[in-house]
């Protein structure tokens, strides 16, 4: 059961890699968050930890509804062309994504997770999500993608946290959630400002400060 969810989660990440346009990206992020929620929820169900229920609740609240909604809102406010502007075209990105997955599998073995155990799969997926998120940030031009990229990475981290160390202490978890949400909001504000000042959000063109 959990295996399937993890696989879907990875699949949704790959969807994001090949996404060329903004709405697609946000939609697949929503999927990813949803699967993350499922994973956490199952973990809560198995371990019968009340805190994990709350955490999963927060995931579905913040990551599945609030943040994508907010992103769409901003996207609508600044009526930008929806292309993400790829440095690396989607096919090659996919290849790289697979490489990252392999790499993270190696890493998970290094970290001493049992071969083939569900946990190792989870960790592999988590790491690959993180790396792919970072890769997205590097390889996409638009400011939005970078926001999304950070969110993806954070999803990966959550997955890792809940699957590997069985989640962090509760208040830390909450604080981190709060933090992430704030950061997204603030980034959104700056996206506004950039759009106002530069009349585009193509951060690749932001190169006044050099040397």
């Amino acid at each position, binding site marked *: 059961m959990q295996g399937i969810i993890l696989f879907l989660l990875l699949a949704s990440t790959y969807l994001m890699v090949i996404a060329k346009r903004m709405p697609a990206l946000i939609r697949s992020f929503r999927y990813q968050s949803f699967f993350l929620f499922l994973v956490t929820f199952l973990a809560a169900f198995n371990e019968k930890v009340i805190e994990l229920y709350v955490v999963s609740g927060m995931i579905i609240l913040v990551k599945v509804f609030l943040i994508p909604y907010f992103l769409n809102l901003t996207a609508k406010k600044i009526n930008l062309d929806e292309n993400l502007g790829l440095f690396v075209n989607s096919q090659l990105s996919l290849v790289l994504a697979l490489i990252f997955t392999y790499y993270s599998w190696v890493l998970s073995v290094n*970290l*001493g997770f049992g071969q083939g155990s569900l946990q190792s799969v989870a960790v592999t997926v988590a790491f690959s999500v*993180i790396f792919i998120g970072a890769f997205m940030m590097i390889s996409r031009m638009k400011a939005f993608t970078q926001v999304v990229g950070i969110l993806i990475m954070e999803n990966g981290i959550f997955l890792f946290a809940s699957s*590997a160390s069985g989640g962090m202490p509760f208040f830390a978890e909450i604080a981190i959630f709060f933090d992430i949400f704030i950061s997204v909001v*603030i980034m959104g504000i700056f996206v506004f400002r950039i759009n106002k*000042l530069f009349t585009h959000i193509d951060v690749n063109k932001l190169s006044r400060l050099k040397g």
Partner: protein
Amino acid sequence: MAIFIILGIPLLLAAGALIIKRERLFGVINCLGYFVVLCFSIAIFKETVLAGHIRVLFNFIYLDLLSVVFILVTAIVAIAAALYSIAYIGKDIEQKIISGKKARFYYLLFNLFCFSMFCVPAVNNLGMLWVAIEMTTLISAFLVGFYNSKESVEAAWKYIIICSVGITFALLGTILFSYAFSISGLSKSLNWSDMVPVAHVLDKNILKIAFIFILVGYGTKAGLAPMHTWLPDAHSQAVAPISALLSGVLLKTAVYAILRFGIIIIKSGELTYFTHLMILFGVVSLVISSGFILIQKDLKRLLAYSSIEHIGIISIGFGLGSPLAIAGAILHVFNHAVTKSLMFFGAGNIVSVYKKHNMNSIRGVIKVMPFTGIMMLLGVFALTGFPPFSIFISEIMIIMAAFNNSSYFIAVLLLLFLAVIFSAFIFHFGKMLFGNLPKGMKIVGEPLSGKFVFLFLSFLICGVGIVLIFKYKDLLWLSQRLLQG
């Protein structure tokens, strides 16, 4: 209980910034507030030195020598910045650069920023540590983008994105630590004070990988090359007092975080691993920054790169790991904070008079504003490690430690690049401070509060340098206990 006052006052002041409508008045109140904070942080420093460590609030706040040192540094730079803000913001309002409303906004952010930075050394839980550091980023992003010009917004964007990415890795590292802790069959907790005692039983392999994430993550925030790229942009665009806080304290808080994890690594018996990584990053930062300093054209960026250099020196110092080196490094944290704030304030004055960052069009500062000019001159020599100023002492300690560990290569690199950087600084500042002033430039006066903060800092620079030669023994004693937790 002093810690609550230290944490509380900034919050109160932040609230006050919303209420009190008269900026100038509030500036003064601000200073008073931070003066109190300074007093209490000195008190708490004493207390901790005697008690070893303090835990309050169900072990949520945990203070040992390391943290109080950083609190003290923060307090000192904060009051300096508060003092300088009065003059600086006042001038900005006069020149209609910002409105009174925005000034109050500034003070609000200023206080929140300080609060978050005071939190970093105070908290015990590593997750909360992460949160605090992320908060510093989010708040200071606004202060970087304060003037809302194209450059400043670009800088702010780069700052927030790069630091968030870095910090995300740091979070991963933190979780790996907690994972290592949880699989060791002990209770599940992220409290540093719980982890340290059992550090030796944790899984080395996981710790190692975790530490890499930590080092890269917080290293980004600390401005270690090659993750330093946000730093010159942010520092050069921020409001002058904030530049001082950024390079004086913010970088150090990240270093503090690295050290917290580093101590666990050391305790788990992986000293050489820690040493190698720290020295590697330190040397890289030193080399890269020296290159950029040499050909820099923008005054504030120059100072920013010099911060990278000094962070490099500090991390080399901690990397060397002998008591002498650590004493040197801690001292360097303090000295660099003080000296660099002085330099940034001076740069702020210069820029506000000349209206330019470009050093080629800044000439004859000594003539235009004698006081600032002379202070800058002292600052330059202090910053580049000339006696009798304090940085000389800390650098000599680190070099000495390098020789004592008979890691001659590091020592030679240090000496070489310090010489290069020194030359570069004299090359730039010699032309800028002396030389004939450009046309239409006339002698200007400086406000008193500005002068006062300069005197305060220069007193610290000179005084510490001289005192420390004689208080050397105590310092070693402290530093020996520093990494014991």
